[in-house]
């Protein structure tokens, strides 16, 4: 017999289950709770997604990852994650995981045994080199490569094949940060670390929607503001975002005008006497480079900068052109806001942290704007001490670890550059090859590599852990080029993507904790993860795929390691490149033991702040020592404002900017398969300013046609969503492979870093 109360409970349960089924229709919930404690074991791993490098604990039971927690022992996130991290393990379990190798036959990809696919890859490499030369074979990797993946790829190409034709997608995301560091300090990667957040009083975010893109670090900022008086967050951006709303002050500037804003602040610092003269006299030298340097729009365009020395007075005269009034005209930033910014940088009592990511790096003057932000810290001496920190954030889990530290860019080596004979000799010695094996000339940087594929100069390309058929700017050219006859494309990935669509061979990869590896995050922290799961089907780690192919090419001697030990052996060989106080890496056992170790790791100690004798074992003397440059000084560069290559005009009257949302990561090939994330933001849209929307008679959901000189797309409008572009600008996220915004973007890049600008081109906006 059912009493009224039982009936009510049952009705409520049924209603809740109906609601539950709508919410999570794809997740099986145990009808009955487990009556015995589960055998879940927790094991550490860095998060699979962004460059913050949160420490996770993965709950594994019966060979499957079933839950995630933040690792309270990780100093990065202290137990907190973002929505992607909490759901990261679900990215392993999309029903369409690639489990078998595929080879294209008569236009169709058909499953073949892994062995056969690897044979084919090796024979195609051999064939292509014989017919078209060494630089006709290329490998295009990723900031999602583990350190061993990138190391083996670089070694196979440079020491094995004798070609520098190694690139990575980090060219599209942080090459400007690298050249910024290199030109200002002579060495890559930040002098500070995340701990600066707990010391800084002022945070200036340069074109960085940190609330969505680096949410765990942004929460550390918000936490400091709650705990300490006087903590100020300033959002300096082209678009109003969640970050702007959470900040104490939101200042909008016109696209490209950050160059003028930074110079305007420098001018005010000098004019008001807010510079640290003593620091400048001892530790800074002044330079200017070439101007009018172009935008890399033509094939084979080359550029080499030349530094001319300046005195402080000459530099001051050059920036004095950037008066508040002129900056206001160029940037739209009110003169009083510029004075406010200068007062923050100039106040000797306040420690300042500048943070940036893609807004600064994806910029046709990306190297310049990196230099210009450093200038503000160098003029005021607010650098390389706790809380005084210009900090370049990264977007991929190992863009720093694998691309920058291992040097998987055409011009780089695990230590130094290919153009430097000494660096080549070191590499040849460690690799056990003749020094002349490694060419002294770089091959192709990323955009040029895809142009070469289109032209036919590159005939074979192996793409690992990245999705260029979503991410390349001016996509149609590079997709058509990849599809031309006589091109052979190998793609190693975990899911079908628009890039596997153009592949001749698809190799199924073991993903993340299905293999052992290391990532390196934005604060010079190396993080090891053990293999915790078996990969599905015949899936194999990218490292081992490369080794298998290398052995088929006759390079057994370069890769002699056993499958069981190879990650440890690779690490031990790799860190020989970094011996010495400037870059020493932690030993393997240390990495296994701890949730991440920062380099330089000297005498068992991490280095939190570089370039100061108090904290950096490589620094000489008793104070600052910018040992990366031959003059042991940090370089202030005069870099002027120069316009973007394509600006709105009558026919294409809006600016188009692209970017991300918190729920999705990179091209969405993983996060779109996580139901929670897909349901939160299932597809792309175009954000408009409410005034523009009203003028175009567009409301939320109205189809809007965007057209640039390169392509057209129809997207639903979003008017009162999470972001608000300035009038005359639109914003589109790039995660949605069904709505490829990169059909419209321009492939202009910074001539120094060769990094494309995805934030600025001219677009026509119409009701569809």
């Amino acid at each position, binding site marked *: 017999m059912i009493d009224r109360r039982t009936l009510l409970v049952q009705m409520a349960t049924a209603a809740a289950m109906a609601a539950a089924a709508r919410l999570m229709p794809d997740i099986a919930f145990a009808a009955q709770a487990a009556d015995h404690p589960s055998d879940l074991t927790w094991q550490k791993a860095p998060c699979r997604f962004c460059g913050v490098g949160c420490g996770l604990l993965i709950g594994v039971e019966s060979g499957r990852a079933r839950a995630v927690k933040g690792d309270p022992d990780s100093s990065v996130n202290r137990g907190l994650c973002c929505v992607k991290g*909490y759901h990261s393990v679900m990215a392993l379990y999309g029903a369409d995981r690639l489990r078998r190798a595929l080879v294209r036959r008569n236009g169709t990809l058909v499953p073949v045994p892994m062995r056969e696919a690897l044979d084919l890859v090796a024979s195609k490499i051999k064939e292509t080199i014989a017919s078209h030369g060494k630089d006709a074979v290329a490998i295009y990797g990723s900031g999602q490569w583990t350190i061993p993946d990138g190391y083996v790829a670089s070694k196979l190409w440079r020491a094995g094949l004798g070609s520098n034709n190694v690139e990575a997608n980090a060219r599209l995301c942080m090459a400007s940060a690298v050249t910024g560091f290199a030109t200002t300090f002579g060495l890559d990667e930040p002098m500070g670390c995340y701990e600066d957040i707990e010391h800084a009083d002022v945070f200036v975010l340069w074109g960085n929607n940190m609330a969505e893109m680096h949410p765990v670090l942004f929460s550390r900022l918000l936490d400091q503001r709650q705990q300490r008086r006087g903590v100020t967050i300033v959002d300096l951006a082209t678009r109003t975002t969640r970050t702007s709303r959470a900040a104490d002050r939101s200042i909008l500037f016109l696209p490209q005008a950050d160059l003028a804003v930074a110079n305007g602040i420098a001018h005010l610092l000098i004019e008001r006497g807010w510079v640290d003269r003593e620091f400048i006299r001892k530790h800074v030298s002044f330079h200017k480079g070439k101007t009018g340097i172009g935008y890399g729009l033509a094939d084979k365009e080359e550029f080499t900068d030349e530094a001319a020395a300046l005195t402080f007075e000459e530099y001051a005269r050059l920036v004095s052109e950037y008066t508040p009034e002129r900056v206001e005209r160029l940037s739209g930033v009110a003169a009083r806001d510029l004075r406010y910014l200068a007062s923050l940088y100039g106040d000797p009592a306040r420690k300042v942290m500048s943070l940036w990511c893609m807004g600064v790096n994806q910029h046709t003057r990306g190297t310049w704007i990196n230099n210009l932000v450093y200038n503000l810290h160098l003029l005021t001496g607010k650098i390389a001490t706790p809380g005084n920190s210009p900090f370049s954030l990264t977007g991929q889990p190992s863009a720093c670890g694998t691309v920058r530290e291992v040097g998987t860019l055409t011009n780089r080596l695990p230590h130094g550059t290919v153009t430097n004979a000494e660096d080549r000799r070191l590499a040849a010695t460690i690799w056990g090859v003749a020094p002349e094996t490694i060419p002294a000339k770089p091959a192709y940087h990323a955009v040029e590599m895809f142009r070469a594929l289109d032209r036919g100069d590159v005939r074979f390309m192996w793409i690992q852990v990245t999705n260029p058929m979503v991410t390349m700017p001016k996509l149609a050219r590079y997709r058509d080029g990849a599809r031309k006859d006589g091109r052979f494309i190998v793609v190693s990935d975990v899911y079908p993507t628009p890039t596997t669509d153009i592949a001749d061979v698809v190799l199924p990869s073991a993903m993340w904790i299905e293999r052992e590896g290391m990532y390196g995050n934005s604060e010079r922290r190396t993080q090891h993860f053990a293999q915790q799961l078996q990969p599905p089907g015949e899936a194999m780690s990218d490292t081992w795929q490369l080794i298998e192919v290398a052995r088929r090419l006759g390079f057994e001697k370069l890769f002699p390691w056993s499958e069981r030990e190879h990650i440890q052996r690779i690490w031990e060989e790799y860190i020989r490149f970094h011996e010495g106080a400037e870059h020493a890496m932690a030993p393997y056992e240390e990495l296994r033991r701890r949730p991440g170790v920062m380099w330089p790791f000297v005498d068992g100690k991490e280095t939190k702040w570089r370039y100061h004798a108090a904290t950096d074992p490589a620094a000489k003397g008793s104070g600052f020592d910018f040992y990366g440059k031959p003059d042991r000084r940090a370089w202030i560069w005069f870099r002027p404002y120069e316009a973007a290559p394509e600006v709105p005009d009558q026919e294409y009257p809006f600016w188009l900017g692209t970017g991300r949302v918190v729920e999705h990561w990179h091209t969405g090939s993983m996060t779109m398969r996580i139901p929670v994330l897909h349901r939160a933001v299932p597809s792309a849209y175009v954000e408009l300013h409410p005034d523009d929307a009203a003028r175009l008679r567009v409301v939320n959901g109205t189809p809007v046609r965007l057209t640039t000189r390169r392509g057209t797309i129809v997207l639903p409008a979003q008017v009162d969503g999470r972001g608000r572009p300035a009038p005359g600008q639109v914003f589109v996220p790039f995660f949605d492979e069904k709505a490829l915004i990169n059909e419209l973007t321009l492939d202009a890049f910074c001539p120094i870093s060769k990094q494309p600008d995805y934030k600025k081109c001219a677009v026509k906006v119409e009701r569809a």
Partner: protein
Amino acid sequence: MSVSDRRRYARIAMAIALSAAWVFVVGRAVRGSDVPAALPRLGDSGTPSRPVDAERSARESRAVASRETAPPVDSPRTLRGFYARRAYPGAPPVIPHPLADPEAVGGAVCLSCHREGGWAPAFGAYTPVTPHPDLVNCVQCHVASTAVDALVRTDFEAVPPPAIGRAAAPGEPPPIPHSLRMRENCLACHAGPAAVVEIRVTHPEFAECMECHAAGVDDGASSKAVGQR
């Protein structure tokens, strides 16, 4: 009009119809996709994994944009409803209602209801109280949910929820079956009108919960949980 004329016209009409169909099919393939129809993307099953459907994409986006499809809230809250909002026990729950201010990180907006709780007439339900009001970037972990279908089926299997009432002996206080990280405030979830009915505590006046209820789960910091090779 002769019979042959009629046949000719019929043939012309058919040719026009066929070319229109051809243009439509090719147009769709060109417009909606970068994948030629002849080269379907393959999953393991050998069937095309994801046909591209631009119209569906636009429809879904409109649904999100207009936020008409937010799933309902359950009242009173039940354990099943509680777990249904979470991908696995311990995962941050999704937001089952439209965001009051999608441009905000949460903070004041979310906490104006979720700090203290109380009756929410708009949902006909009591508002769940957050156990961690100090974390103000709410949308960092909690995201909205639309009713669109998953893009691809997931084979993820969550850890089962812990059994409730696992007392050592009848009448003994049961141990705490979950991690206390970000859940230090027991009464936020276990007391008050918004508490989940099955785990509502009978004696909220005894606020020193951990005097009787032992933490039954190791918080599992990596220092204690370094895996074997």
